[in-house]
């Protein structure tokens, strides 16, 4: 197994040259977060992840979290020690408000840190990721008392957090949940019910776990309109801030999963547990929506982060492994990297990872602009773009996670299928990311159902038009850029066609646009990737590093000529409507 090489220079290139980080850092409130400072932080962060977190990745897979007979949950060897160092180093606090002990850095920087920790160990990284979700809910809607009691220790990471949404009958349809919350005389609520799939629902890495729980108060409206959101701590917190008695939440069991064995996925039982309302009763879905964009972007990033690690390993293997003679080689067997098909697989990984990472960071930059831009109109526009890009980031990023870890495994040949090489772990670990935080099918439905219709389609059309602005720049850059310009022009045209069809068909036949939603989202992902890599190639010479310029040009050209054309091939599926999807009855499907 090869050693993790922190991908900080790739992230830094994208921040500086592709997604406009230097301009973001000029906005009020981010003056302290200039590019040089951020890159220095990321370098130290990468070093930390390499030395402390990455070495725990394998143990997390082979010796996963387990529940003891007494109901406590023990994490994989090394996780607890690594987490203590993670808390001491403060990496989780960087993008959080200074008021509660954070560094007030942009979300973009937080996302880059999340990528580094996820690349080092995805199962480990989920603990701080879920904590951040709970923190965001409290930050936006918690009372001052709840904030001052819980946030400081959650921001440092001394206390971990969880998100309790899913119940056996309430998965994608969260409105079907039945956990009950009954108000007591003292203003707290008694929470009773069962929650499943709770990531880091219990563990030994933090002394306290703060559960964010969705439940219904008596007489609440049916569906999502009747959901309330509560804080339920594992231990009640005394007035002096110390931990008091154990609350009524127990771990019934841990799930046996395909991957991320190091992350304990719990069935939690709440029995008359003390909960504190966040916001108002029946306000829970509003809170969830605030967190959703942020969580979905983070999950999209997970796809790229794990693909990066798998890529690094497959590259090392391709350089080391010798088999047969490549064309023109004599004597000793050639390293398999000398064979064209292996090169194809390596370039596919490298180009998609760069495209995916650029998309995630661009999405994050708009998220920061939506809260920090000085002009209200720019903030509003940034929020629209975040809405549009988020389902694409989540689904395209995690689909790539699946595809690229599979390619990395393939490069290992038969050994990839053997657990010993570790290639299989990335393939298994990343598989969940296309499922949780809204399946990729839900993301595609969100894109065509909610996001395309914003301002009657004007929002999405404006964004498409802005992507075309790169074409004249490519034309000016010289003949090296011709195939990039031609490819992008052609595929943007296909995407525009599909978008026109979606906007035209949407109201009259919602089932038709849902039927084409997944291929349509893929077209978006492919075009965004080609557009961002074109910007990378244009920026290459500005680095003053000929090798870097050459890398960026070759990646963009490879993508435009060999990956991007798949976009046009999806036009038919995106616009076919629902006829043949529903042509067969369930009985016919079974035959």
């Amino acid at each position, binding site marked *: 197994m090869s050693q993790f090489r922190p991908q900080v220079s790739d992230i830094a290139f994208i921040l500086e040259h592709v997604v406009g980080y230097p301009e973001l850092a000029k906005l009020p409130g981010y003056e*302290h977060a200039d590019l040089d*400072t951020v890159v*220095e*932080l990321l370098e*130290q*962060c990468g*070093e*930390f992840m390499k*030395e*402390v977190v990455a070495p725990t990745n394998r143990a997390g897979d082979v010796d996963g979290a387990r529940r003891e007979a007494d109901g406590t949950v023990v994490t994989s060897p090394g996780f607890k020690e690594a987490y203590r*160092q993670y808390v*001491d*180093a*403060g*990496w989780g*606090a*960087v993008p959080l408000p200074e008021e509660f002990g954070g*560094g007030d850095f942009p979300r973009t920087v937080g996302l880059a840190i999340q990528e580094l920790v996820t690349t080092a160990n995805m199962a480990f990284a989920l603990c701080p990721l879920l904590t951040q979700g709970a923190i965001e809910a409290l930050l936006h809607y918690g009372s001052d008392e709840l904030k001052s009691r819980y946030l400081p220790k959650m921001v440092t990471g001394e206390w971990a957090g969880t998100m309790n949404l899913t119940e056996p009958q309430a998965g994608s349809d969260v409105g079907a949940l039945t956990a009950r919350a009954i108000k007591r005389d003292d203003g707290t609520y008694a929470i009773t019910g069962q929650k499943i799939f709770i990531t880091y629902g219990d563990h030994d890495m933090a002394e306290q776990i703060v559960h964010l729980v969705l439940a219904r108060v008596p007489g609440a409206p049916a569906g999502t309109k009747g959901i309330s959101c509560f804080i339920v701590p594992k231990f009640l917190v005394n007035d002096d801030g110390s931990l008091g008695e154990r609350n009524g939440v127990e771990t019934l069991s841990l799930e046996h999963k395909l991957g991320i064995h190091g992350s304990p996925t719990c069935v939690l039982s709440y029995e008359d547990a003390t909960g504190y309302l966040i916001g108002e009763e029946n306000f829970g879905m509003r809170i969830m929506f605030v967190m959703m964009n942020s969580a979905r972007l983070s999950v999209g990033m997970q796809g790229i982060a794990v693909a990066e690690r798998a890529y690094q390993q497959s590259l090392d293997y391709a350089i080391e492994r010798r088999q047969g003679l490549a064309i023109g080689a004599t004597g000793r067997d050639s390293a398999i990297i000398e064979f064209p098909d292996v090169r194809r697989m390596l370039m596919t990984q490298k180009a998609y990872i760069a495209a995916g990472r650029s998309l995630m960071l661009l999405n994050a930059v708009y998220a920061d602009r939506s809260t920090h831009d000085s002009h209200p109109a720019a903030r509003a526009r940034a929020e629209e773009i975040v809405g549009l890009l988020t389902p694409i980031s989540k689904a395209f990023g995690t689909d790539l996670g699946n595809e690229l870890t599979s390619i990395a495994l393939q490069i290992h040949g038969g050994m990839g299928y053997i657990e010993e090489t570790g290639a299989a772990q990335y393939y298994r670990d990343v598989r969940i990311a296309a499922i949780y935080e809204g399946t990729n099918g839900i993301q595609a439905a969100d894109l065509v159902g909610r996001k395309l219709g914003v301002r009657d389609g004007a929002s999405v059309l404006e964004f498409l038009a802005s992507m075309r602005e790169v074409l004249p720049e490519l034309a000016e850059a010289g003949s090296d850029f011709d195939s990039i310009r031609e490819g992008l022009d052609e595929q943007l045209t296909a995407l525009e066609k599909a978008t026109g069809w979606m906007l035209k068909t949407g109201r009259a036949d919602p089932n038709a646009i849902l039927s084409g939603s997944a291929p349509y989202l893929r077209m978006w992902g492919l075009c965004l990737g080609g557009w961002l890599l074109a910007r990378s190639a244009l920026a290459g010479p500005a680095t003053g590093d000929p090798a870097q310029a050459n890398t960026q040009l070759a990646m963009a050209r490879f993508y435009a000529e060999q990956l991007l054309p798949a976009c046009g091939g999806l036009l038919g599926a995106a616009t076919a409507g629902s006829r043949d999807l529903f042509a067969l009855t369930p009985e016919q499907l079974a035959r």
Partner: protein
Amino acid sequence: MRIVVLVKQVPDTYEERKLDVTTGLLDRRASDAIIDEISERAIEVALKHKDSDSTTEVVLLSMGPASLTASLRKGLSFGADSAVHVLDDGLGGADLGWTSTALAAALATTGYDLVIAGNESTDGRGGMIPAMVAERLRVPHLTFLDSVEITVDRASGLRESESGTLTVHAMLPAVISITERVPEVRFPNFKGILGAKKKPITVLTLGDLGIVPDPQLASVGRSVIVSTIERPPRAAGVKVVDEGNAGSELAEFLATEHLI
């Protein structure tokens, strides 16, 4: 209490290190410069004491070219309070004697209760600086400590030798040197990294320290490099093929090389 840690910037131990064959001096462009790992461990000893007593002031002291600043910032990011940088063109290629003179003079200027240093650097490996500094300052010196305990008026620790383990102590002020047995330095906290930019680094020249180099010498070095030669390239090894007498051939080879 003021603890001064002697910090040395060295070429990255895990990269290829090179000497410039014309000058006989280190080729600083050949590899990245980092803080010597043993210096980092010395910083950790000081910070551990600061953890238990927040009134402790930890000062880093180093001598080196202008590029040393980055290493000092890194050292400050672990949690030290300030740094002193002895910087003077006249110190290029300084030998142990001159280095210890400059460091001792700087220590006399800054003041100290305890000086902590690594036992030897990974590049020069002279292993004499801590003792020479203690001698020049005329304070007690504990060498090669595997563990350290610091109280308000004394330093103590364990020192292993071939025949046993010594428990040694000295009243402060004192100079101590530590071995690789003391723990690695902690990872910097992100606030430490940000804060390091704002912490003071005092630059002192030879003039500030009242040291005048001998004008008779081209450099301040009292030891003079007479000649240098590149290490010969590695030659192919000897292969012993077993045709029934490999044992004796091996023994003969080892005997010729005076290995047995």
